[in-house]
C-alpha cells in the first residue's frame, strides 16, 4: 500500500492560494480601498464632529477608539469571503471538493486547507488596513499594533463558524440573504463598533455579547489604549473567540465529512 502524506490540508491550501492569486488585483484593491473609504468618511466626517463636540470617546480621539473595530470588521469580511465562497464552490458550483475527496484527502483536510487560506487573506487584509491607517496618522494609541492580533482573532473566530455554516448549505440564495441581513448587518452596527456597547439599550446588547466583532473590538481597545475593561472580561473575550474557533472548526469537519460521504 502507498503511504498517505500527513498534513494533507497544505495541498488544499495550495489550491486555494493559486485561486486567490487569480483574484489578486481585486483582493489588493479591495483591501486598500475599503480602509480609505472608511477613514475618509468617518475620520474626516464623523470623527471631526465627535472630537469637536465632546473631545472624542472614552478619553481618546474618535479614530483611536474606532481603529480596532475597523480592523476586526475588515478581518471578518475577508474571512467570510474566503470561507463561504470556496465552500459553496466546492460543494455546489464546481464540486471540486468531491474531486479532492477522490484522492487521499478527507473532509477534515479540505475544511482545514480552506481555513488556512482564509487566515492568510485575513492577515493580509488586516495588514493593508493597518498600513493605510499609518498613512492617515490615526494610530496614536500607545500600543496601536496590538489591534492586529485582536483583529486577526476576530477573523479566525468568524471564519471558523462561517466554514461550518457554508458546509451545510444546500441552496445558496437563502444563505446569502440570511447571513447578510440577519448576521452581518446587525453585528456590524450593534457590536460597539461606532459607539460603546453600553450606550445602546440593554435589550439590544446581547447582540454584542454573542458577536465576535464586539469581543475582538473591546479586546483591541483594551490592548491599544487601555480602555477600562476589567481583567475577567479581557479573558472572557479571548476565551470566547478561541471557543468559537474550536467549535466552528469541529462543526465544519463534521459537515464536510458528512457531505462528502453521501
Amino acid at each position: 500500500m502507498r503511504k498517505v502524506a500527513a498534513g494533507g490540508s497544505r495541498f488544499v491550501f495550495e489550491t486555494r492560494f493559486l485561486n486567490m492569486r487569480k483574484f489578486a488585483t481585486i483582493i489588493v484593491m479591495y483591501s486598500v480601498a475599503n480602509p480609505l473609504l472608511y477613514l475618509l468618511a468617518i475620520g474626516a466626517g464623523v470623527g471631526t464632529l465627535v472630537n469637536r463636540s465632546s473631545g472624542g470617546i472614552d478619553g481618546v480621539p474618535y479614530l483611536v477608539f474606532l481603529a480596532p473595530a475597523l480592523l476586526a470588521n475588515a478581518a471578518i469580511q475577508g474571512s467570510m469571503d474566503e470561507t463561504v465562497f470556496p465552500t459553496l464552490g466546492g460543494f455546489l458550483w464546481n464540486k471540486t471538493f468531491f474531486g479532492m475527496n477522490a484522492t487521499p484527502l478527507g473532509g477534515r483536510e479540505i475544511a482545514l486547507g480552506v481555513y488556512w487560506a482564509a487566515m492568510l487573506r485575513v492577515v493580509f487584509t488586516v495588514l493593508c488596513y493597518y498600513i493605510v491607517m499609518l498613512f492617515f496618522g490615526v494610530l496614536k494609541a500607545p500600543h496601536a499594533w496590538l489591534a492586529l492580533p485582536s483583529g486577526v482573532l476576530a477573523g479566525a473566530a468568524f471564519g471558523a463558524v462561517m466554514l461550518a455554516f457554508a458546509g451545510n448549505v444546500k441552496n445558496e440564495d437563502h444563505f446569502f440573504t440570511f447571513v447578510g441581513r440577519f448576521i452581518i448587518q446587525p453585528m456590524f452596527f450593534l457590536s460597539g463598533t461606532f459607539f460603546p456597547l453600553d450606550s445602546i439599550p440593554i435589550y439590544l446588547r446581547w447582540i454584542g455579547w454573542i458577536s465576535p466583532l464586539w469581543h475582538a473590538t473591546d479586546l483591541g481597545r483594551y490592548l491599544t489604549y487601555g480602555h477600562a475593561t476589567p481583567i475577567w472580561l479581557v479573558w472572557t473575550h479571548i476565551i470566547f473567540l478561541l471557543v468559537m474557533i474550536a467549535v466552528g472548526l469541529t462543526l465544519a469537519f463534521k459537515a464536510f465529512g458528512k457531505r462528502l460521504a453521501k
Partner: protein
Amino acid sequence: MSEELIVARGLTKKFGDFTAVDGIDFSVYRGESFGLLGPNGAGKSTTMRIIGATSQRTSGDITILGKDPEKFGPQIRAHLGVIPQKDNLDEQLTVTENLYIYGRYFGLSSKFIKGKVDELLEFAQLEEKRDAKVESLSGGMKRRLTIARALVSEPDILMLDEPTTGLDPQARHILWDRLFRLKEKGVTLVITTHFMDEAEQLCERLIVIDRGKIMAEGSPADLIKRYSSKEVLEVRFGSENNEAVADQLRDKCERLEVLPDRILLYAEDAEHVLEEIMRANMHPKTSLVRRSSLEDVFLRLTGRTLIE
C-alpha cells in the same frame, strides 16, 4: 486467473427505505476492463462510490486491493484514479495547474508532477491548451483533462463513471480511443455506462445491473450469445398497429419484443424473416436487419430498454 483487485460479496447500500445496491457479488482482476451496464438509477454510481472509498456500504463485504474501505479509505484512494460522472475540475485554474494541484493531493512532489505534465497533456491531446483556463474548454476537452488528471498518480485502478455521457459522437470516439490505449497498456479499468455500444467497445467483462441487482455477468459476446439470437429484425407498422400485428409475427421468429414504436424479431437469419413477412403480404413502414447487441440482452433480462 490473475490477482483480484476488487472483491464484493453481498454488497448492499440503502438510503433510508430505498435499496440502491441490493446484495451484489463481483470481482475485478488486475489488467482487465470491467463494466457495470445498466439504466440510470440502477445503482452503478453508488457502487462506484463504494469502490472509490468515499461512500460506506450498509452491509455485505468489499475489499479493494485487499483492504476494507471503511477502515483504509485514504490508503485505498491513494491507488485509485477516479473520473466522476460530472467533471469537477477547478474552472478558475489552467489545464496545467489542474494537473499540478491534483498530483499534490496525492502528496506527489512538484518535481515529479512537472515531469509528468507533458506526457499527460499529450495523452489528453491538450498540449495547445496547457495554459488555457479550464472554463474555456469544450466538454470533450474537460473530459479528457479529467482522465489525464486521474492518471497523474499512476493509479492501479482507473474508475470511469459514465465517461462519455453528454459528449457529441466525435468527442466520444476520441475518448474511446484514449481509453482503449490505456487498456492496451494493461491499466485496470472499471467503467459504468448505460450505452451498450460503449460497453461493447471498452469492456472485456461486465455485469448487467438493474434496480440494484445483478441480472447477468460475462463478456459482451458471451452475453449476446446466451440471451439473444444472432440477428434482429426491427419493423415498424405505425405505433397504433404494432400490437395488433405482433400476434401474426410470433411464429416467424424465435422471440419477439413489442416496443412502443417498433417490433423486434429475434432470429438466426433476420433477412429470411423479413422475406417471409413480405411473402405473407404484410408491409412494414420501415425495416432494419442488424446484429444483436447488449441492448437486446438487457431487454430480454428486464423487459425494458436501457435508455428510457
